């Protein structure tokens, strides 16, 4: 698809008038999606989709159009001509955009993934062979994904990957289940079998009589997959310059005097170099390898999109339009995971959280539910599964005053979202031992 995109980019260049500039982004994928329920195939299919987003600029006036590509060159060229004409017709009626900013220095890049994926039929056979006769439910998503950028200055960027993500749960009954994911670029049946075997072991504990606890404060261990949900919520307006300037950030109290802080072991960064997302964005800027957002518990820097950079007079660091991290990295602590149940002593071991939201956004107070394998631990031993509980706590408590330690080992979590397209976001993070978390319902 790279050649096809570059051919279209050259075609767009040939269609421009002399005072016009364009920026365009290509995104596409060829995906297989197989849903499972009760260890069997529920709904299998394929999706092939290609989109082109085109920003036509004359002076400081611009309009943006997005269209579906058919991958038939003549037809797609006709569609582009029509789109250019529609956008061009709009420009005289639009005011100048005071916050328009795009890259003018050419920084072409290329990152081409290798396709090591076996045929889906082989993977499907591996999955069925491993999970049959169990209550296995989830989705296998795989295939190619492509992102490209081009502009009229001659910049060309390309990023392609061939990946898979098997996101699944193994159920005992009702809501008692173990959730696991197996994602990557090279499929190995043995890895799936190992993960499945671990899940089966955990499932045995879920068969014990569940424990019901009263609302109150409890000592907690958040596994990396649970901590991931908290950080994903913070990614919603938590780290972008615009949200900070408009005071909508949930980290508002980190920015205003007297400044609240996280525990000194908390250092968060957007680690593009070690993530899976493209290193370029849709105004043509190339991202730095790392942007430190929180350093040793204190606010350090925001993600700054080109638009915010122009609006607030700060240099952009190549953030996307939403100014949300795509490759979030929480530094490891020094506590060995192996000792976590023993050190937790008596409390709640949480593997997964679910449906988080703000109960007081400006105060950084969040709520959410435990889900899947959550265990009651007594005197350093897992005693029973816990029925779902709601927590309601500020992030300054969870990651600050009540944080005892972060684990030395981290997990690399590839986001499983497939809204509109297969996500390329990822996170690398440890688990967290917390002295007291408020549970309310």
């Amino acid at each position, binding site marked *: 698809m790279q050649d096809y995109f570059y051919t279209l980019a050259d075609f767009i260049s040939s269609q421009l008038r002399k005072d016009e500039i364009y920026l365009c982004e290509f995104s596409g994928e060829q995906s297989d999606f197989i849903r499972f329920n009760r260890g069997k195939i529920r709904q299998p299919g394929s*999706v092939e989709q290609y989109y082109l987003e085109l920003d036509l600029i004359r002076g400081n006036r611009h309009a*943006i159009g997005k269209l579906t590509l058919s991958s038939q060159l003549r037809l797609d060229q006709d569609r582009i001509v029509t*789109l250019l004409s529609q956008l061009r017709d709009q420009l005289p*009626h639009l005011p100048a955009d005071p916050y328009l900013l795009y890259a003018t220095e050419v920084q072409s890049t290329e990152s081409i993934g290798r396709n090591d994926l076996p045929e889906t*039929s082989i993977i499907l056979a591996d999955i*069925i062979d491993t999970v049959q006769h169990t209550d296995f439910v*989830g989705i296998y998503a795989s295939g190619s994904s492509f992102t490209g950028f081009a502009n009229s200055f001659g910049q060309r960027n390309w990023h392609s990957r061939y990946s898979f993500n098997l996101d699944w749960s193994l159920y005992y009954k009702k809501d008692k289940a173990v959730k696991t994911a197996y994602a990557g670029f090279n499929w190995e049946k043995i890895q799936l079998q190992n993960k499945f075997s671990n899940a089966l072991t955990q499932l045995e504990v879920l068969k014990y009589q569940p424990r019901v606890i009263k609302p109150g404060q409890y000592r907690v261990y958040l596994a990396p997959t649970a901590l991931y949900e908290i950080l994903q919520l913070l990614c919603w307006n938590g780290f972008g310059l615009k949200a900070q300037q408009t*005071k909508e950030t949930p980290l508002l109290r980190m920015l205003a005097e007297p400044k609240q802080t996280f525990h000194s072991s908390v250092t968060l960064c957007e680690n593009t170099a070690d993530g899976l997302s493209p290193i370029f964005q849709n105004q043509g800027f190339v991202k730095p390898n790392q942007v430190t957002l929180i350093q040793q518990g204190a606010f350090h820097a925001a993600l700054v999109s080109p638009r915010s950079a122009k609006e607030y007079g700060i240099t952009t660091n190549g953030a996307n339009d939403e100014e949300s991290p795509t490759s979030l990295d929480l530094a490891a602590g020094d506590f060995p995971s192996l000792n976590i149940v023993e050190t937790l002593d008596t409390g709640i071991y949480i593997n997964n959280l679910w449906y988080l939201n703000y109960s*007081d956004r400006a105060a950084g107070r969040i709520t959410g539910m435990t889900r899947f394998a959550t265990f009651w631990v007594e005197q350093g031993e897992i005693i029973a599964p816990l029925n779902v509980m709601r927590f309601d706590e500020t992030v300054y408590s969870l990651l600050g005053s009540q944080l005892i330690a972060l684990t030395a080992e981290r997990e690399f979590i590839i986001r499983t*979202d497939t809204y509109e397209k297969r996500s390329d976001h990822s996170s690398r993070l440890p688990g967290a031992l917390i002295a007291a978390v408020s549970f309310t319902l």
Partner: protein
Amino acid sequence: MLDLIKQRFHKLVPSVDFCSLRYVAQHSENLTVRQDIAQPPLYHDDEGVMITVIHKGGLGYAATSDLSETGLRQAIIKATQWTQLNQPNQLIDFSKLTLPHQQGEYASVVRKPWNSLSNQAKFDLLYQESAQCHPNHKIIDWQTALLSIQTEQFYLTNQGGEIQQTHHYLLPYIKVVANQYVNTQIRTLGGHGYGRQGGLEILDEIGFFGKGQQLAEEALQLLAAPNCPTHRMDLVLAPDQMILQIHESIGHPLELDRILGDERNYAGTSFVTVDMFGHYQYGSNLLNVTYDPTLPEQLASYGFDDDGLPAEKVYLIRQGILITPLGGHLSQARARLAGVANARATNWNRPPIDRMANLNVEPGHTRFEEIIHTIERGIFMKSNSSWSIDDSRNKFQFGCEWGQLIENGELTQVVKNPNYRGISATFWRNLNQVGNRETFEVLGVPNCGKGEPNQGIMVGHASPVCAFTQVDVFGGS
């Protein structure tokens, strides 16, 4: 386009038990003014097809944006290959399913088309409203926006089914942000809840003009208000919060594919089980809930769902008793329960699954003033700001932008950061007053997320003002 694709489909249709083609073309325009400055307009044209094949008991789908004969042929081959690949290990024997082959049409009612005004004129409307959003410096951000979406769909089957549906939607939006030190208060036009089918006439129908000033004044009142108190009290919900309450604690638990376990890895399961239908006391006897595709202005009104099933109004809960699940043709067959026409896909590139469509609480007979007058100690909340619920759709916590205490039958002190929590299985049984038709508003949720692969879809909710007794209410930190 319809004729060309129809011709190609019927030429290529394979010799299989069932084959359908679902074509979706969508054109959207997004105009936004932020802080009195026009943002670059966004135009989006999207089109593609999904081919579904059922053969020898297996099912497969393939979606493509290549609408040429070659592209359609490839999609049919892929979908057919899927039917073969999954036959030995499939959950459902599709050979026992008889899918509809209906013919029909549906079109949104539009009185003032989107294109009847130039974009410049539409931007002028947004400027005009934007100018009213910032009466003083404590308002630090504001925006006004219009999103127009027009879709054309047709659905063809190998046995003569042919359905054509055209929808026009308008989703207006206003947001005002007030701040002082570490206190930020946001007011919006009912979140994104005021989307409807139709054209620009919707702006007058929902009272869009003048809302900017009202929201700014309310944001400033909230900025000066105390936090909502923590107390168990009566709770009165405006329609723009009722939509979330209905959505999360009635809509999702009643989705039959959740009850059948399909969604357990992602959207979750349900505290409702198949054996509850027909007798379970879901709410008080004042609770009447319908699946209603007949209100022309509501977001999810349509003639047929995406499996070609005709849509008609059905009571899901009548006088508090659970009757009917939200399950389409396939789920009905799996669960052996009657359902509704709600197999829906968000676009051409996602397969149909059980979704909410228009899910409404029917109006009662009580005037708003009467509801307030009967409450000794309570709170009135409006406009959802936060939503969270467990994966069985039982333990919930919701927050609102606006709270106002009710004391001795009067609306009194405005309070900020109002939240409440409860359990679905008992909350609706505490419904003790249902507002009359004057309090009834047709609203919706534009981004309901569900499914693997994930799908965000528009659903409609209409509701009167409702009152609940003895709810745990609390405020911010």
